[in-house]
């Protein structure tokens, strides 16, 4: 009985999608996703949502995402079974799209122990009660911690590491900061970089050491979660705004993807600390917001409109397929690709032997912007664009 309960808990935990890019912030979940010989998709429900690129975080029963209601930016909590709204919490007046961007929040909420952590596009850092949406604590990253607002507003997603909430604040006084996740108290702040962007920190164990890896505009670096002490840093040689979270790979490697290119770093323990060494650089893996996925020893990465299967050892492209711009996740060995403009979901078996599409189905209106990475929670695929949320069952 106890074992069965533990198993149920384990399974339900595994099926959750607690924030940006899933349980390990790498776009991968074990599912399960049992697909038949002829896979099909069924729309469980569909509901309107306001503008925003914020991803969907999912607990066992509820989903959380950010939107603009036209006037204000909000965090919306909805029931995963029906799509019905449970609560909404105001983040502030709507961040208006400009220079081609869209209105609304970018940051994906982070779920932890019944709480929801999110950064509003104008720099509000919120801890909300997951059941009610009540504000537990909040900070203003600009006025309280000297953050500089990125060109399109704040887009970083907080990272929970034990009792700490690590936030890529930006600015030069609290560039990377850790807060007590219970009461919001500042635990440490470090300035290993000056600038920021939209990227989010990730937790990884590299060269035997738990570390928080950070993609800043001018460098990728790692810190000790306990005090923010720098463990290693690798200069990137450009002061653009960083967008994607780093991807930690087995074998003490880090893949860093930027708009212009991707690089693979090898992290090594050296006398007195750690060092990063660049192994390869690929200009093919560029021009995307999608996470790059690791499956059975190969990487699956978007480069502009093209899906690439890449050998992580040397960056060699094993195969590529034009699927058009979009974002990927990997569920139970299946690549899910949501077209950024096509509004189509493609399902393809992740295999180094070639692109094997199992299903292609229209989900959203063609032409509507769907920049948000898919989520997978409670056994269903959760997709959103700037006007709708859809819950799909794949079988």
């Amino acid at each position, binding site marked *: 009985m106890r074992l069965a309960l533990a198993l149920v808990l384990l399974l339900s935990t595994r099926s959750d999608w607690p924030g940006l890019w899933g349980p390990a912030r790498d776009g991968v979940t074990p599912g399960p996703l049992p697909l038949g010989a002829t896979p099909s998709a069924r729309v469980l429900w569909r509901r309107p949502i306001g503008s925003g690129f914020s991803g969907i975080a999912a607990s066992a029963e509820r989903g959380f995402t950010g939107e603009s209601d036209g006037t204000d930016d909000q965090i919306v909590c909805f029931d995963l079974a029906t799509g019905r709204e449970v609560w909404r919490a105001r983040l502030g007046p709507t961040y208006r799209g400009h220079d081609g961007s869209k209105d609304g929040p970018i940051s994906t909420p982070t779920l932890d122990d019944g709480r929801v952590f999110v950064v509003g596009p104008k720099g509000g850092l919120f801890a909300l009660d997951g059941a009610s949406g009540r504000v537990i604590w909040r900070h203003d990253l600009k006025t309280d911690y000297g953050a500089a607002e990125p060109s399109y507003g704040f887009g970083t997603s907080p990272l929970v590491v034990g009792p700490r909430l690590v936030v890529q604040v930006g600015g030069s006084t609290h560039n990377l900061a850790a807060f007590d996740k219970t009461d919001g108290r500042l635990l440490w702040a470090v300035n290993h970089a000056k600038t920021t962007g939209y990227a989010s920190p990730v937790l990884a164990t590299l060269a035997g050491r738990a570390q928080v890896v950070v993609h800043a505009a001018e460098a990728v670096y790692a810190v000790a979660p306990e005090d923010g002490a720098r463990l290693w840093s690798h200069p990137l040689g450009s002061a653009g705004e960083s967008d994607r979270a780093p991807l930690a790979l087995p074998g003490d490697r880090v893949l860093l993807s930027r708009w212009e290119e991707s690089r693979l770093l090898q992290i090594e323990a050296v006398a007195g600390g750690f060092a990063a060494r660049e192994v390869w650089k690929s200009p093919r893996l560029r021009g995307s917001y999608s996470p790059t996925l690791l499956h059975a020893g190969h990487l699956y990465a978007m480069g502009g*409109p093209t899906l690439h299967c890449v050998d992580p050892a040397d960056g060699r492209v094993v195969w590529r397929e034009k699927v*058009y711009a979009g974002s990927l996740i990997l569920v139970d060995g299946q690549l899910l690709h949501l077209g950024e*403009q096509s509004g*189509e979901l493609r399902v393809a078996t992740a295999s180094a032997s070639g692109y094997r599409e199992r299903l292609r189905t229209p989900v959203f209106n063609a*032409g509507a*912007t769907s920049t948000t990475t898919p989520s997978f929670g409670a056994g269903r695929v959760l997709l959103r664009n700037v006007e709708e949320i859809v819950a799909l069952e794949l079988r």
Partner: protein
Amino acid sequence: MSGLRRLVLSLSVMLVGAAAAAQPAAGAGDWPRWLGPNQNGSTAGGGVFQRTPLRLRKAWSRPIGGGRSGLVVAGGRVFSLVTDGEAQVALALGAGDGTELWRVPLGPHAAESMAPVGSPVVDGEGVFVLGTDCVLRALTAASGASVWQVDLKQRFGVALRRGCESSPFVENGRVILQPGGADDHRLVALDAQSGALAWSAKGTERANYSSPVVAELAGVRQVVVHHVTPEPPQRSGLAGFRLSDGALLWSRSFEANVSTETPLWLPEDRVLLLTWNDAKLATLRREGDRFEVGTAWAKPSLRSRISPPVYKDGHLYGFDGDELVCLRAATGEAVWKQRLYAGSLIRVDDALVVLSANAGLVRVVEASPAGYREKAQLQVLQRGAQTETPPSFAGRTIFVRNDEEIAAIVVEP
């Protein structure tokens, strides 16, 4: 504005006549340059889209390579610039069936750009192409043979991050282009036969990635340029240079916001300036040699990134983000809006030809303030493929391209 309809109509007839007279070999019904014969996205089509019900058919399509260079059509040939991601080429296809007629390799891309943007321009037997390599090439339209070429980097000190993206045009035997060069060479006119420099204009500000147009404003034939102030915070502005000698007639920078959009000349001495965040209608008045620039209105509207809106009978039709909008030109106030998702459009007679930016759809819509009325729709390009080139229209055919293919669409008989 409806009271001015007759004046506007007669003016546009005069314009079409003037354009045809200036380009003898590019016959009436051609689309010889960026945004068409009148550089405003509007042309006459002999009522081709009047049929009811209207049915569209894909006549042909073929892979073309990347880029967003416009499709220029003249004398039965389609010209554009394309890239395979590394090398860019100028391409000529048969307008009737898409057969490749010739291709001419251009220089390498600028490091920060992978796609040609500027459109070729046809004048007489010549076609002039400017790729991101910043070499202006005069080729014969028939075979692509080189007549002359000018390296804008060497000749005019061009040093643009993304390379040259501006579309040249030809007027009175001169190629007019915005090299975006050093102070002395903001705008230049080259002899179309020889490439010799006819004049070079000092601009007050930079004009880097937009395209100049010719217009008659306050009674003076001039080249209208969208410029951007070099110092942050950057601002967009307009300037007019006399067509005959490049003399600066007027210049005005507006409040914040920039873009690379082509200015749109409207009747009654008005020019529409589009930025990523708003639209401003500038008005020109002249007293003697002095031009006065005013602003009729400025609104957060028409925020397109592909091409300017089109004008008809006192109304503007264009994209504002995900919506196709109809505005009263005099005031900028919205008459109607229709959510179509991002796209671009041209006008043929009283029909809008609308191409979606990502859904691969071509729509024919009535250009009427009475409301959004769709006459026909056709799925032409691949859903999800990025389409950043407005349609072209020549003969009785719509031509569209995106980052991978080109297609020709005709009306079903």
